């Protein structure tokens, strides 16, 4: 009860109030229908707003890395830049190209956006801000996020353009390879956490993040997950499907207007999704920092709303991804596959075995120092 009053900024009260108000006046069916629609609208709104914020942040941080100012003309510090961009891209004409596979050409952006939207829905944004809490959440996220590659391959194939095709094939090779590493890295943590459900995973990290709980093995899994997540989103040093110096723009060369906007949006949201899954699985998700025995400190930490914790942790990881992106040169395709199949995958396989040994022999931090973590 005290906890309820002490978290005035959480959405918990609002959501329960809405639910009881609806239930008191209508039947179960209509309550669920209205709530589903509200959740969907909320998620879509969050999707586009987060994408706009990310685009602005990306352009600003990129500029700072290159000793520039970045957008600073539209509004103070250019904060309305991405709003202006969105309006522009909505007003642009969608150019129909001759001799393309029309159905697939129009279907491809939707595959991209739907794949990232489905993943987006399963992310726990905060306490009670979790649309779908599957008991196999990790598996669901890995499975659904890999649908996006179908969109990329379709876009490359249906454009009837050699650059698009080469870009799509590179992207396919890259995605299939790195999906493996990302999956294995998440499995390492599933071994540690003993569950695939995101809410249980977060609850399990109340006093000790998974990143520290499995010490060496977790750290390796974390780094591998970040690398392969980077590669999956076609960013940073792994952006060779879009290598503009060789392939104009890769698989989305022939797209214009909002169709291009979908690819663009999905790319940024995928970056956010990778960062937020890493946050949830490795860094304790929306759970505030809690320390055994320091009850006052824990209480103060709970005053900061859980979604602020979530977005702060995710923001740090997104910054890390931008930092990496502007530090390293683009990999060649053979170097890319070398890195995955000769380094990341073997290390990952050994890492899972090490993690199993750590868990079975009780060498995790929670087992070693039960009172402390």
């Amino acid at each position, binding site marked *: 009860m005290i906890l309820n009053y002490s978290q005035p900024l959480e959405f918990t009260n609002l959501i329960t109030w809405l639910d009881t108000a609806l239930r008191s006046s209508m039947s179960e069916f209509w309550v669920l229908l209205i709530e589903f629609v509200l959740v969907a609208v909320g998620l879509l709104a969050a999707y586009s707003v987060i994408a706009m914020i990310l685009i602005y942040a990306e352009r600003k941080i990129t500029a700072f890395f290159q*000793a520039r100012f970045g957008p600073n003309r539209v509004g103070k510090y250019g904060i309305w830049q991405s709003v202006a961009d969105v309006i522009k891209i909505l007003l642009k004409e969608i150019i129909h190209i001759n001799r393309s596979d029309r159905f697939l050409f129009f279907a491809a952006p939707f595959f991209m956006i739907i794949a990232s939207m489905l993943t987006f829905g399963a992310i726990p944004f905060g306490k009670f801000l979790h649309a779908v809490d599957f008991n196999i959440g990790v598996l669901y996220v890995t499975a659904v996020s890999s649908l996006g590659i179908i969109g990329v391959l379709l876009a490359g194939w249906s454009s009837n353009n050699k650059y698009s095709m080469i870009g799509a094939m590179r992207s396919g090779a890259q995605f299939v390879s790195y999906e493996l590493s990302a999956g294995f890295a998440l499995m390492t943590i599933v071994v540690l956490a003993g569950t695939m459900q995101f809410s249980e995973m977060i609850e399990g990290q109340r006093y000790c993040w998974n990143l520290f709980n499995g010490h060496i093995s977790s750290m390796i899994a974390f780094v591998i997950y970040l690398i392969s997540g980077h590669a999956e989103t076609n960013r940073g040093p792994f952006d060779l499907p879009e290598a503009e110096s060789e392939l104009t723009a890769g698989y989305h060369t022939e797209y214009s207007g909002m169709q291009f906007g979908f690819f663009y949006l999905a790319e940024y949201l995928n970056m956010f999704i990778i960062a937020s899954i890493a946050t949830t699985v490795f860094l304790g998700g929306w759970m505030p920092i809690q320390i055994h025995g320091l009850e006052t400190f824990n209480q103060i930490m709970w005053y900061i709303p859980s979604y602020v914790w979530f977005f702060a942790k995710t923001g740090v990881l997104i910054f890390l991804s931008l930092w990496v992106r502007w530090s390293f040169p683009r990999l060649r395709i053979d170097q890319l596959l070398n890195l995955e199949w000769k380094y990341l995958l073997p290390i990952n396989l050994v890492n899972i075995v090490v993690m199993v040994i750590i868990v079975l022999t009780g060498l995790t931090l929670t087992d070693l120092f039960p009172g402390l973590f």
Partner: protein
Amino acid sequence: MSSILEYFSGLFKGIKSLLIGMSVTWKELWTKKVTQQYPENRDTLVISDRFRAELTMPHDENNEHACTACGICQMNCPNGTINVLSAMIETEDGKKKKILDTYTWDLGMCTFCNLCVITCPSDAIKFENTFENAVFTRSKLVQQLNHEGSKLRVKPPKSTESVTKSTECVTKEAQIK
């Protein structure tokens, strides 16, 4: 065995070099921004003195310039940008003398090669770094460089000039030594 060693040493060397790269970009993140925000920074804008933007003919406080209307600049101009119109006048002691009437320079045709300034025997013209030369019509690009009612500067007597020059040379030589 050595190949395994190579594999691991290569791995750790790679990680080390990546970390070095990231530390470099981290430092770069905090460096001063080099962007020049032009219309706002007009007061503090630094344009190099050597930047050639506008041909001028310096006039002193008596509205006198150094151009003798010899026309060498016009002959040396590769584009026919300069047009020197001269007039003949009779001086007080009855000599005929060529003086400058109008000196026109077409900014629209100039390639800023500096040949006119280099070849001028009396250093009468020079390029300034005032670069805001945009105008709305082409005819405004043609400028007259000599001011209204300006005269040729009368040179000081030759003997004193040579004396000062020679003393300058001496002092310079002394400095070098």
